[in-house]
């Protein structure tokens, strides 16, 4: 899922202050933590309270769509509700914001989130961590299901580097060394020989920028 964090409310208030009729659009898709109807409603309440302190009254309309990145779904859900709206505040990832901006070129469309990475949530600990960098040339089969591009701070393909100590990364002592994890995993599977092959750099042309499904 795509991991986002909420923008500081001051920043959002700065964006929307020139406008009065604001449409807040949540996304029920893959944004994590969830940015659906509840988050949209809460954001409208917080912005109303924040607006009052700036002597600014807003009219908020709140809704959510199944996936903001789906232009068809989003258009059919939002077009009937767009009359009178001056600005749109999107709770989706950066992709959703761009879809909305394209759908409503005449309106101001603002992001309410910062988009970070494709990650997974460790529910018990309440932690979201990057897991995939979308490189276009998946090598998880060779690394015991642990992605060194997303999880090694240096994106090394032939790790670990000299900065790995006690299973942690030199960049951040809280961060697991991805290569240390890979070695442990391969050891457990009895596949350590996979490490003997030197891997050439990733071919980033494979990442691509457009596909026809």
């Amino acid at each position: 899922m795509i991991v986002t964090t909420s923008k500081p409310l001051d920043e959002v208030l700065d964006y929307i202050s020139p406008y009065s009729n604001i449409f807040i659009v949540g996304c029920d898709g893959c944004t994590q933590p969830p940015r659906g109807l509840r988050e949209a409603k809460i954001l409208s309440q917080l912005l109303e309270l924040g607006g009052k302190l700036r002597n600014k009254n807003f009219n908020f309309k709140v809704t959510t769509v199944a996936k903001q990145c789906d232009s068809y779904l989003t258009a059919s859900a939002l077009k009937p509700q767009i009359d009178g709206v001056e600005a749109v505040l999107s709770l989706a990832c950066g992709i959703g914001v761009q879809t909305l901006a394209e759908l409503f070129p005449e309106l101001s469309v603002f992001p309410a989130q910062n988009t970070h990475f494709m990650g997974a949530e460790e529910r018990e600990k309440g932690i979201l961590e990057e897991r995939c960098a979308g490189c276009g040339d998946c090598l998880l089969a060779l690394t015991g299901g642990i992605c060194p591009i997303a999880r090694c701070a240096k994106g090394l393909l032939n790790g670990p580097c000299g900065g790995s100590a006690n299973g942690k990364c030199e960049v951040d002592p809280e961060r697991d060394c991805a290569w240390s994890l890979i070695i442990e995993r391969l050891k457990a599977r009895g596949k350590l020989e996979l490490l003997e092959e030197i891997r050439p750099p990733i071919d980033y042309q494979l990442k691509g920028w457009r596909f026809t499904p």
Partner: protein
Amino acid sequence: MNEQLTEERAAVEINEDYCSSCSICSTLCPFEAIKRDTETGKTFLEIEKCQVCGICYSDCPAKAINIIYYDMDSLTKYLVRAKQEYECDELVIMCKGSAPDFAGIEKLFGVTKFIPLSIPCVGRISEEVFLKAIVMGIKRIYVLACDEDYCRFDRGSQITKRKILALNLLLDQLGYGTEVITLKRNSLKVKVDKDLCIACGNCVFYCPYDAAKLDSPGAVSFDLSACKGCGLCVAMCPALALDLENWEEESISTLISKLLSEMKPPKILVFRCQWAVFPPLDEEFNQNVRFIDLPCASRVDTFHILEAFQKGVDGILIASCSEEDCKQEGASKNAQHSVTILGERLKQIGLQDRLHFCTVAPRYSGSFDRELEQFSKKMEAIYLEGGKE
């Protein structure tokens, strides 16, 4: 335990002068808080384990147990007062843990006009109270208890059943018939709006009782026999698709508006967990403070808090059980987490210090009052400061 706590008055005490060491209380106590010293033969109470259910109080044959909440005296006074106030002869005694709002009571018992008596556990109501009520002229008594396997005081619901059976037999012999007292069981349950559900699985993760299932694509379904009505999933649902039957979001919103209209600034609204604070039956209201009793602190909803701020409340206090005392698994922890996150966001718009989460327990009578007093002082100061600008 620090000194401040030990100095406080415990809500339950054993009066050694009256105690005959019969051990009924230690046998009945669901929390093993009452024990008998094998050497001295004396019965003693470990207050830290006590959850103040009151079962020992009402069943002590020697009247050797003192309790602060809902003792014989305050229950009798309440009944006398309430009988005049409500002008009717039907009484509904309900467990707070399972009681729906008043409209829900109507649906359950078919009574529209009744004297409500809402207490933490109906198992604590002694036979004497029932008989006194009947002597006072009350014709029918409806008892609403939690389902036996949900009873948060473990044995309260069971004890109620036996008590009522015996009481009805007794009343029949006295010529009152067999149906003076009716027992019903109820538990709050979640309901899903399938049109709003986005099948995200949040409730499946948060439900402490594995009641939420996401087996088939589409929408979540709940095993209602496992649901204990804590409301945690409702407060965590990102799609606003869940609600508690007879404890709906809307009714809390309506209550917020009503309470705020009665108050004078600085207005303080308290959301309190029914297990953390036992309000006295003759609770007096200060014009600055109003209370909303929730089935569990985990039902405190971020948007109810914000709604109250939007409607002009100055401060919100949330009184919850501590993690150790929490009657619902992990509910207190989750409630605190949500409130902390919201507090951070309120800070960003200049509403810092307006929201406070505290953990209290009824075992010390003053713990909640002290929290409220401190918070009130803070709100008063903020309010006066704001007035000068």
